[in-house]
């Protein structure tokens, strides 16, 4: 099946082809250079290298630990005798070492290195300084500092009160409840992928979305917050026609919608109830999706009958984890997962690909 063709050569090859296609389509290298060399964008360019590097470093250790876990799982006798780390250890070695000098010297070295990096960075690159503040001359594009560009980019997809206030609050509280909803006792203090599959995927998805929004905000949004592909010239006179429509209007005015008599959806009480149902439905479907993700055994998925067993095979270990999870933990997780981790990409696709503006329109707020 597909799995046979996915190896590191095909992945690198595919990435190379994508990069080549993109490079051929770059019309304006100067524009690209101007964006990525802007002093305040240097950190996000650095992140593009640092995040993959540290991800690789973490995964490398996780894979080594996972190999050890599989080995020990097979051999209970060895599991009892083994010191259970991939780091070397010999009988007779002290399990603990003195902080002075073994840790303090590492810390000292770190401060020296960071200081050197800072000096070099500060000597070679100047902090930006624009014209004096002028309320009568709007900067276009006027961008927040890079670490807030994710929020600013969210303004495209949600109304300001959601993007600027509700979403950040939910993300903050969501991060804080993370340790309380993760009922998995394994993987405490060591890198592992196999024992914490779901938790890591969820956090990784959130982290990736955040970085993605920042990258879009930094490299893609140009004057008027219009979408310019990397390498496209920023056209200050570009105008984009607002062709986004609300979901209920889209259905009510479509040929199919008219044919089956859904024209009433554009009217007032109907569109309110319709939107509420859609949002409610989204939460239910989203929760089911996460439940499936939580328990499924990916290796046993097959696209054949009977679908119930082949599309939803249960992973025994994940089932065990779910049994340890209290109802409160489960529901709390589902709320945060659906309203941020899923809502964000779904709204992004709705807005960018399907030109849907709002799904729920009320006199007080629009979602």
């Amino acid at each position: 099946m597909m799995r046979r063709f996915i190896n590191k050569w095909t992945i690198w090859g595919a990435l190379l082809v994508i990069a080549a296609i993109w490079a051929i389509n770059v019309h304006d290298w100067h524009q690209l250079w101007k964006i990525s060399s802007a002093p305040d964008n240097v950190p996000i360019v650095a992140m593009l290298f640092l995040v993959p590097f540290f991800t690789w470093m973490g995964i490398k250790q996780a894979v080594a630990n996972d190999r050890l876990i599989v080995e020990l799982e097979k051999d209970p006798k060895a599991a009892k005798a083994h010191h259970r780390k991939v780091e070397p250890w010999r009988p007779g070695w002290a399990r603990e070492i003195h902080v002075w000098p073994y840790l303090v010297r590492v810390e000292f070295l770190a401060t020296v290195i960071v200081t050197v990096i800072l000096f070099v960075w500060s000597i070679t690159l100047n902090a930006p300084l624009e014209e004096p503040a002028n309320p009568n001359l709007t900067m276009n594009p006027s961008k927040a500092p890079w670490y807030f560009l994710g929020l600013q980019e969210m303004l495209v997809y949600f109304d300001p009160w959601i993007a600027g206030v509700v979403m950040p609050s939910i993300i903050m509280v969501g991060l804080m409840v993370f340790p309380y909803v993760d009922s998995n006792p394994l993987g405490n203090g060591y890198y592992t992928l196999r024992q914490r599959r779901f938790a890591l995927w969820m956090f990784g998805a959130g982290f990736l979305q955040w970085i993605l929004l920042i990258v879009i905000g930094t490299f893609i949004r140009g004057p008027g917050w219009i979408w310019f592909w990397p390498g496209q010239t920023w056209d200050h006179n570009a105008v984009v026609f607002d062709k986004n429509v609300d979901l209920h209007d889209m259905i009510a005015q479509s040929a199919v919608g008219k044919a089956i008599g859904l024209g009433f959806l554009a009217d007032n009480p109907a569109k309110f109830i319709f939107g509420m149902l859609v949002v409610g439905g989204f939460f239910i479907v989203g929760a089911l999706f996460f439940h499936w993700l939580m328990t499924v055994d990916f290796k046993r998925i097959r696209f054949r009958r009977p679908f119930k067993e082949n599309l939803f095979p249960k992973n025994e270990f994940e089932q065990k984890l779910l049994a340890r999870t209290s109802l409160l933990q489960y529901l709390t997780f589902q709320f945060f997962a659906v309203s941020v981790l899923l809502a964000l990409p779904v709204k992004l696709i709705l807005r960018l690909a399907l030109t849907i503006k709002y799904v729920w329109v009320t006199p007080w707020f629009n979602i």
Partner: protein
Amino acid sequence: MADSPEQKEPKQLTTGEDGDKSLVAKVKEGAGALKDRAIDEAKGYSDPQDTQLWKSIFRVSHDRSDPRNRSLAILSNVFLHLHPAKINRDAVRYPFTWGMGGITFYLFIVLTFTGVLLMFYYHPTKADAFRDILYLEHDVPFGKLLRNMHRWAAHLMVITTWLHMFRVVLTGSYKRPREFNWCVGVVLLVLTLLLSFTGYLLPDDQLGFWAVTVGTNMARATPMLGHDGPFGPQLGMTAYNDVRFGLLGGSIVDANALLRSYIWHCIGIPLVASIFMAVHFWRIRKDGGISGPAPVMLESEMKAVAKKK
């Protein structure tokens, strides 16, 4: 006592046992004795750790051959006493720790240091702020370097905070008993972002002005507390009494906003952040130090049902 030197001095000069020696010889002899004494004393200082000065500062001898003293080096030092005396032998391995938390704290110190120096040259007023930056860049010795360092250390601190968080997630270090410390960390992350953001306005240039305008415009849409937010107008919110007005000290980004962000940036948030940092570091120790590298647990060892808390 008062009269004895008077009696001795004329005696030493004229009579006594050495009376027949010349004055030069006597001085020479005295100097020789003094020299011997000085050399003798200096030998005692050859090990600075044996001096009274050293002992008064460091309280204990740091004789390197005694392992107990390695512990005392940590325990009896106010800056190092946050560390335990001994740690897990693998916990100093860089691939495990990444060192990002420590680097973040170091950057906070760098920022405090450069920030205090910058404060000597900066007035948070509309008339002076921008000119002060120009002055700093062109006239103050190393002023440009100072400003650059403050700027880039701030950006770096945001990056290291994120990477620190990333490492904590990957190693599951937020798990029991460290859940609460994770929450403190999330607060510190937000404070770091706010610190950086409030500093953005201070040069009073177009970049900061419009970034803060965009940022605070979101606040006007706060539900119930902003005049553009859901249920805001119904609760009597206007541009002159809502949460944005409180943040800016006015309805537009102007002199008051500059002053407010200066005070939040230099005093308010660093103070709050320091308190949270103290809790964060203290809790690391109380929760058992760094989480690993811990021995791996096996899936088969997991109990089916969580034990009652």
